[in-house]
């Protein structure tokens, strides 16, 4: 089943997948236990002539224990899943590492627009670098993207990074990720955003640090000229 996932190329992707597999093993056991029991009962307790069913209404604690004990196990496992899950959620969504790499990601029907602060390091100045549908980042560095939207709700989805966050008009929502691999990865929109929703995609280009610097230099001189 692992082969169905897109390749993981972010620092926290393995944690997200880890929770997936943690839950997968637990529910798989439950699946085979319950469905197996049902199948067994279905074959074992078919009607046979002259044989009556057992009258068991579950109205004594001794009988009820048969459902209450498994239920208690479910409670424990649920809390266990929640606790493990909370750590990963916090890692991805709450504990953003400090970084000097900040980009604005702006959703609009039906493109992703990315804005880098120019050489002055500030947004909303004349030397801002704007790209359409292309986000260039260096590998091995925490990247912060501040998500915005110009019209409707879009969702910034990086399948290879196990990251998803809606871009909500009227809000600035920061997300972070750190690439572990050089390459090009798609940035689909994951929230229905109009007739062009399908096909609204950007490209995340992960460079080695020196190549990234080169790209940035070219862009900043290009836009400054």
């Amino acid at each position, binding site marked *: 089943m692992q082969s169905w996932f897109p390749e993981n190329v972010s620092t926290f992707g393995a944690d997200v997948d880890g929770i997936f597999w943690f839950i997968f093993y637990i529910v798989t056991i439950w699946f085979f236990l319950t469905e197996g029991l049902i199948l067994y009962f279905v074959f074992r307790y078919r009607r046979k002539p002259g044989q009556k069913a057992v009258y068991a209404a579950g109205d004594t604690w001794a009988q009820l224990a048969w459902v209450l004990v498994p239920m208690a196990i479910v409670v424990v496992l649920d809390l266990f899943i929640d606790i493990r899950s909370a750590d*990963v959620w916090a890692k991805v969504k709450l504990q953003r590492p400090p970084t000097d790499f900040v980009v604005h990601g702006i959703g609009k029907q039906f493109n992703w627009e990315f804005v880098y602060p120019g050489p002055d390091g500030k947004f909303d100045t004349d030397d801002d670098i704007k790209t359409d549908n292309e986000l260039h980042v260096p590998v091995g560095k925490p990247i912060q993207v501040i998500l915005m939207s110009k019209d409707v709700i879009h*969702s910034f989805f990086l399948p290879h990074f196990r990251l998803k966050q809606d871009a909500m008009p*009227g809000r600035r929502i920061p997300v972070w990720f750190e690439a572990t691999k050089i390459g090009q990865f798609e940035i689909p929109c994951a929230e229905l955003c*109009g007739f*062009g929703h*399908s096909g609204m995609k950007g490209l995340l280009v992960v460079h080695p640090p020196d190549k990234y610097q080169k790209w940035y230099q070219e862009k900043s001189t290009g836009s400054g000229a």
Partner: protein
Amino acid sequence: MVSRKIDRFGSLDKILKKDIEVKNVNEIATDHHSHSDKRSFVSRYVFSTDHKVIAKQYLSLSLFWALLGAGSAYLIRWQIAHPDTEAFGWGYIEPNVYNTLVTMHGTIMVFFVAMPLLLAAFGNFLLPLMVGARDMAFPRLNMLSVWIFALASVVLFTSFFVPGGAAAAGWTGYPPLSAKNEYTGGGYGVDLWLLALALEFASFLLGGINFLTTAINMRAPGMTLMRMPMLVWMQLIAAVVFMLSVGPTIAGAILLLMDRNLGTTFYAPDAGGDPLLWQHLFWFFGHPEVYVILLPGLGITLEIISVFARKPIFAYRPIIYASIISGFLSFLVWAHHQYVSGMDPRLAMPFSITTIIISVPFALVIFSIVATLWGSSMVFTTPMLFAIGTLGVFIFGGLTGIFNGSAAVDIYIHDTYFVVAHFHYTLISNVFFAGFGALYFWFPKMFGRMMNETLGKIHFWLTFAFFNLIFGPMHLVGLGGMMRRIANPTQYDFLKPVEPLNIFITLMAILLICSQIVFVINFFWSLFAGKVAPANPWQANTLEWSTSSPPPHENFDAIPVVYRGAYEYSLPGQKEDWLPQNLHVGDGAKAALH
């Protein structure tokens, strides 16, 4: 009279036969029957206040909508498997038509198939019969509710033909997409969509009042709350959950209508509004709605399984308590639809905990059903197959829900086909499987004829196989990252690996839809030419089986008296393995039993 007929305790069959003979005498003698025969065709079948006729009206409307829902599913699947080709029987599917299909499929299936089928049709038909009442508490209100629903249906159907087409902003209708026409979420279609939803909610509010009043005030003598059939309990809990949750969404819908037509800005961020407000108002109802559909489905499953396992429902009271608790919990989980929506990310954990904890009461219900099967004496009729199918499928859906409930996993699988596969497993098990089970089970009572068992079993196995072949692999498509509601997956390189699966799923979906022809043939053939049904073909205990099939105008010739709970099957020391709720076993008879 009641005491006279059980002086001698023979076999149950004999007593029931005598019971029916007595009834026939009553029929001639009783005044209201000769009176009711004078009703004209229109007052009998069209503007009827009889809960059984109203139930059939809901049933017809929901089956009509199910056809459209299935049709839209076919077109959606065609487009996903063979993007931008001409769909067989339709033609090229424009991008915004695709969005309309996605929107209307969800709206139709949840609000115009699931609710009218499980709550309105079976609730209306069974609730008065099961508690031993002559009709609903407010028959005219009942008629009003079905006609408001009919109006809602007309409004929704009309929306397909207005300029700009039907709504295209998803069945969740998130603004700003749904708020302004230029965003291509639909024009007048959205207004009509909102109007149709508001009308349908009004209809079900009236229905809920009727369900509550009937079950609380109109129970037959001896029918204590803890003797009520499980389905009545589930309908009651569902009605309460619906009535308490729907208010905010109606308010939200009116705000959206005002934003669209009166220039208000409740959801417009550039003028002080907030699109997230809609999501909270919508899902505050939207998630309890899941349980509104699910509980009656589980109730149906419990009824059928108890009858054909010939066993009492295991842990009757704990199941009721668990269902009530799950009803309460369902009000505390709504924001799990919004983990990545932009709400404060710190909110995710409390909602993740409530969401995963809601699996606990359902675990109890499921374990109790499994325990009911233990030591049983199962008869595999068509309804029983569908009931076991519901159970098997629902367990799978419940388990995949744990993935969605975990906020961390949801970051990746949110808005992917994993979620689509999950909620089809939970909802289809309860609408499709439990719904069909209920139809096969109560068809004799509704229409006075039996359905064909062979066709029924063929229908079950085809449905069960193709259903799993569609939605099982769909989980893998979701793990591959495929987003919901995209019209053309071939536009994405990372989705290349799931393309063969998409084609396979589409083929299976077409076969699933085709398999339903077996049901349609069976339904109509049985309606006119099926074997005439006896009063109690399944040897079941609940009150609806104590009257004729179909029941007379006011259900019972004499209001039955209830002596015991609904599930006294295979009582030790008794010859028969069933004991109707209304059968009085006198002292002499009791002695004869032992």
